[in-house]
């Protein structure tokens, strides 16, 4: 059974300027021990999904659809049960490790607090566990009495990962966990996350705009555009043989060294990501698409089955209804 199952999720922010549909019908599942990578640009709705799974959005935000975590319907939980589900069911590692820690509290105490608040152990046991957790994320246990300012950026991110593991969650959501880190430290943190996930059999939802990071850590990859998944499949294949023109453009932004197709040929998309309040008709990507045809502004593509576990929401993809597969 899958650890997390998201079915037709729709998240709408209500603002003074009207409703903003940030997520417009997203479904996916993550099994035990599996990593799903969620890619897309800022504003595509990927972090909104993370917020919905942990129900971190304000009450004015409208959430529809179904989110099932460990068999429990998250959107139906009472506040008390919800609190238990956070951290024990799912926990999150944010981008801003540098700011997420309390600067005037020892890191050990912060981990202990996470454990005792959820009544997983008494204070003494929690201290022992905090030391063990630090060791697990590659920090010497003696650092338990350090304050956050005594740690480097990479070490702080390790502490955040230790806290995320504190209550033995079955799902970890990593939202741009390495974006603010230096190259070498980024590689260290990625390696750590991957080995922990593997050793503990965790399910992980890994969110970032950097497709090259995702292909390294994920089993499956889902690419989002304008609040919907536009391509999904095994990570390696989606990255190396993208079907959707948007995925092609994203992959080209992270070229592999030695690939002559990209040498002295930077390529990008024209235009900008769409305003969620004014999503273009038909395929929302059509105004920026290099392969646009006459049907694109009219036909809303679905995530069609392109075979071998791959799905793409493009009329040109294999599996799209033959009616629409006219040549550009």
């Amino acid at each position, binding site marked *: 059974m899958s650890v997390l199952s998201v079915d037709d999720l729709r998240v709408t922010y209500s603002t003074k300027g009207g409703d903003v549909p940030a997520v417009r019908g997203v479904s996916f599942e993550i099994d035990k021990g599996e990593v799903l990578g969620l890619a897309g640009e800022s504003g595509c709705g990927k972090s909104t999904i993370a917020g919905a799974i942990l129900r971190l959005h304000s009450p004015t935000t409208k959430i529809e659809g179904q989110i099932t975590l460990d068999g429990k319907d998250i959107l139906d939980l009472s506040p008390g049960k919800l609190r238990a589900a956070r951290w024990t069911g799912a926990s999150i590692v944010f981008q801003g490790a540098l700011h997420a820690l309390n600067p005037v509290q020892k890191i050990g105490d912060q981990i202990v607090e996470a454990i005792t608040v959820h009544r997983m152990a008494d204070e003494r046991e929690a201290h022992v566990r905090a030391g063990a957790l630090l060791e697990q994320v590659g920090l010497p246990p003696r650092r338990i009495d350090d304050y956050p300012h005594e740690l480097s950026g990479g070490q702080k991110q390790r502490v955040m990962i230790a806290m995320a593991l504190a209550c033995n969650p079955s799902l970890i959501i990593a939202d741009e966990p390495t974006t603010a880190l230096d190259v070498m430290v980024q590689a260290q943190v990625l390696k750590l996350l991957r080995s922990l996930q593997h050793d503990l059999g965790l399910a992980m939802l890994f969110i970032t705009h950097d497709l090259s990071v995702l292909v390294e850590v994920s089993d499956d990859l889902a690419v989002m555009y304008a609040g919907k998944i536009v391509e999904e499949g095994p990570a390696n294949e989606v990255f190396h043989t993208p079907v959707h023109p948007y995925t092609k453009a994203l992959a080209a932004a*992270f070229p592999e060294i030695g690939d002559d197709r990209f040498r002295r*040929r930077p390529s990008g998309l024209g235009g900008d990501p769409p305003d969620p309040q004014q999503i273009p008709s038909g395929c929302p990507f059509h105004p920026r698409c290099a392969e646009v045809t006459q049907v694109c502004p009219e036909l809303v593509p679905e995530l069609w089955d392109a075979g071998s576990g791959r799905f793409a929401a493009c009329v040109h993809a294999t599996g799209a209804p033959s009616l629409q597969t006219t040549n550009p």
Partner: protein
Amino acid sequence: MTDTIPETPAPQLGTPVIEVEHLEVNFKGRVGLVSGLMGHKSVDAKAVDDVSLTIHEGEVLALAGESGCGKTTTARAIMGLIRPEKGSIRFKGKALPRSTTSLRPYRRQVQMVFQDPTAALNPRQTIYEIVAEGLRIHNVNEGPNGESEEELVARALSRAGMRPPERFYLLYPHELSGGQRQRVVIAGALVLDPSVIVADEPVSNLDASVRGEILALLMKLREELRISILIVTHDLGLAWTVADRVAVMYLGRVVEIGPAEDVLQKPKHPYTKALLNVVPEAGGEDRPILHGEPPDPTRIPGGCRFHPRCPVVASGRAEALGILERCNEQDLMLETASPDHEVACHLLPLGEDP
């Protein structure tokens, strides 16, 4: 799509525009009152320690390395924003003057593009004012061919891909997208007709799909206007897409420099190889990763400054090759590995690859 975009031809190495020789920049250490009274001495950080490099006309040179390696400091010294302790910087053969006022004409020729366009633009100025500001600071009332200020602003905006330029004059930065803001920053640099653009991580704050466009713009400027571009970046993939030559810095030194194809595909320095190892790619889980944080420029190790983290030393290979003593004790400068490709590593004379 990508494969229909023509490759920008590699320029022949033209005349040197900027020549940096034996550049050294120190940052004064600070010591607190209490520690001062207790007799602690402040320690200076050697951010840049004997760097020499040349930027040729119409060339894209990438300066790469971890944070704290001195790449941004080198760029800022080239901009004339930091006064070096030692060494010289020559622009078109003439040494930079040391006084701020006599640096002005030089600053006009060498323009900077920053990482975060939102922070670089004044939110209360219109796009027109932002682009015209450089002209006003440098008291440029008309262009070389008698163009008016408005004509110069319009030309800079359209060269930066903001067309038609008039449409943007009265807008404010918050009304533009991230990519457009970076184009405005570039227009602000172009308006003064510079010979060199120094771009410090010019796309790392931009959305993935917009990055390529900004890089393509920089490539076009160097091709059409023969502008030389120094790109400071931690991203070797980016260097592969745009740079003619790549210089890799470690702890204030250039440890490897050469044509991008050589440095990125046949690295001769173990540090370059380590940096290439951490470029994320599929199936790269088992690659070796250097341990530890970027090192501290207040405590530069003796011998080869990379030896405490060097995989060749750690694996025992240096010892087997009989160079361990040199690695530990003998500091070294760049040596020629092949034409245009220079490396500072004790492996080089042995003809060994890292």
